[in-house]
């Protein structure tokens, strides 16, 4: 394989992406917060800790059932802050527009960003706009960076999962990836599948207010799906994880599209979901709390941390067999977020 080329798989969130990070990006740009590999970097300051994160959005198509690139751009960055327990303070917005992009569509995207920011209680503080000639960018690319404040004493991180912890999710998997895929492929659906794109900071703040001692990891399973995220956590925490397929919340039409296209919902992107790794004693309480929240009505306990280990993730299948869950190598679905 020609090693001089960047391939789509390098942007997919799976193994190729990790390799690019480990072999080129982190060594070249290294600094401790970047190497920590959590959703946001924590910067120590004499006055407390700041969380700082950035993400770029290149989703195709720009408008999809349940939202548009603007919703993703705000909610995605708010969520990365929320996952490290930060209260989001401010977001920056960088727009790269292709010559010829529709002004009306830009207006709609910006309106969505404003609504999402208001709903999340975060300020869009600063920004930049560039336009490039036709053909040099695909309609619109957005970068957002966000800062937030982390309460003292909060210890959340991908390396904190412990044996005996339960793993919860706040709702159905695969909705976003399949919503985008369906629109892209022109699939006709009886009931349209909507992206689950949403800001989770209210939900996570709620959970942390109640159970801060016992919640060990919060992470949002975006590109690469819950399989990739759980694999990351298992590797970072040096544990083994077992999932129970029968408990995975999954909407029927999402399952149908996956069956048709030969996709595995475990690896499909989500944009409004959080994986909660929590001490077993608090699992039922956290489940109740999630279910009471509008973004958690389909919450479920989907697995547990079973042993110390090397990052092995297994799943008991719906028919009672046992299979391993590995990290995906490249793109199952390109340009999903």
């Amino acid at each position, binding site marked *: 394989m020609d090693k001089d080329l960047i391939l789509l798989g390098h942007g997919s969130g799976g193994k190729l992406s990790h390799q690019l990070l480990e072999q080129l990006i982190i060594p070249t740009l290294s600094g401790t917060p970047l190497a920590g590999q959590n959703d946001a970097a924590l910067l120590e300051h004499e006055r407390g800790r700041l969380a700082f994160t950035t993400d770029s959005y290149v989703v195709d198509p720009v408008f999809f059932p349940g939202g548009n690139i603007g919703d993703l751009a705000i909610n995605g960055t708010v969520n990365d802050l929320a996952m490290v327990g930060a209260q989001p303070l401010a977001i920056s917005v960088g727009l790269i527009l292709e010559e010829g992009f529709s002004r009306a569509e830009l207006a709609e995207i910006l309106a969505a960003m404003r609504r999402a920011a208001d709903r999340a209680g975060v300020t869009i503080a600063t920004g930049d706009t560039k336009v490039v000639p036709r053909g040099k960018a695909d309609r619109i690319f957005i970068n957002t960076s966000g800062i937030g404040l982390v309460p003292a004493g909060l210890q959340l991180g991908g390396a904190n999962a412990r044996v005996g912890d339960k793993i919860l999710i706040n709702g159905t998997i695969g909705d976003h990836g399949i919503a985008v895929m369906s629109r892209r492929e022109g699939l006709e659906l009886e009931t349209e599948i909507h992206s689950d794109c949403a800001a989770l900071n209210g939900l996570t703040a709620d959970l942390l207010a109640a159970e801060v001692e016992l919640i060990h990891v919060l992470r949002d399973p975006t590109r690469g799906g819950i399989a990739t995220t759980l694999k990351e956590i298992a590797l970072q925490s040096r544990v083994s994880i077992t999932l129970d397929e029968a408990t995975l919340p999954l909407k029927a039409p999402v399952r149908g599209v996956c069956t048709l296209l030969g996709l595995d919902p475990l690896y499909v992107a989500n944009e409004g979901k959080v994986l909660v790794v929590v001490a077993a004693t608090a699992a039922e309480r956290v489940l109740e709390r999630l279910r009471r929240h509008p973004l958690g009505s389909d919450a479920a306990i989907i697995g547990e941390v079973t042993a110390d280990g090397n990052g092995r993730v297994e799943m008991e299948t719906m*028919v009672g067999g046992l299979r391993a869950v590995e990290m995906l190598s490249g793109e199952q679905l390109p340009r999903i977020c």
Partner: protein
Amino acid sequence: MDYADEFRNREIVRGLAARIARLAASLEKPLTFMEVCGTHTMSIYQYGLRSLLPPEVKLISGPGCPVCVTPVGYVDRAVAYARRPGTILATFGDMLRVPGSFSSLMEERARGADVRIVYSTLDAVALAAKHPDRQVVFLGVGFETTAPTIAGSILTAARQDLKNYFVVAAHKTIPVPMQVLSSDPDLGIDGYLCPAHVSTVIGGDAYRFLAEEHGVPCVVTGFEPADILQGLAMLVAQKVECRSTVEIQYRRFVTREGNRQAQKLLAEVFTPTDSAWRGIGVIPESGLAIAEKYAAFDAEKTLPVTVEEPQEATGCLCGEVLKGKAAPCDCPLFGTACTPEEPVGACMVSSEGSCAAAYKYGE
């Protein structure tokens, strides 16, 4: 009732696993069955079915992945077509990442070639109709399940009088290679789980020569977990009772004669030919070439390309894995030089390849 969920029922699967264990208890020696279809390989891994089998019953994967058995030279020709100016290279998704001697279709796409993934061959024909100034070249890879759809696309293109639709034919047929494998004493195959969907087309009788002349039990099996376990139970029962016949487990979709209409399409558009199987070599009468009548749609005849001598990667055990003689973990390159991100052989890249399955589901 959707005729799918019922065959994924946990209780039913448990009951069937227990039946296999009961039957296997009376065996004198352990048994090795081969499943020949990539869809079976995937289903077995996806549902974790091996963990439900007794130790006396072993399952090995065969060459039932059409992408995996496609020789390196074919990928090189596909790359050559992709580089040809004015060409739209249309293919099923699986072929995209298979490494050729020097490149893959995915790399060519990254370099600017017009490579399009299609879900149906008719989408490729539609591309040709939409772009009369370009040549649409479709990669005809598949077994008897898919070959009729490619035949259908050629007939459709003929009906629409299209002059810019071409197929690079590499279709293969399943029963003949099965006989090659079961004649190999090293493999010790005690029976076959015959493919589900190939059999919908060719019918259960296509395997009779294996069971009756060569003494190898055959059970045509569906791909849902309960189907696979029931099929295995039927195979074990045949061995326990010293029978050797063709049985159809997948009766809801497979008959003894098969799909006559699909067979007619195959007979109209294709002729049997010798075919090269990666890792096995040339097997006579195991492929389907485009018939003379439809030569205008045959890329090899109408749009020839030249390629260098193909280079097989050294150390790659794809051949042995495809024959079931080696497990993926036996290959020295498995998981080290050959990974899904940087595949060396087709078994690792294809969505139905044994190595890809073993890597993803980590046995």
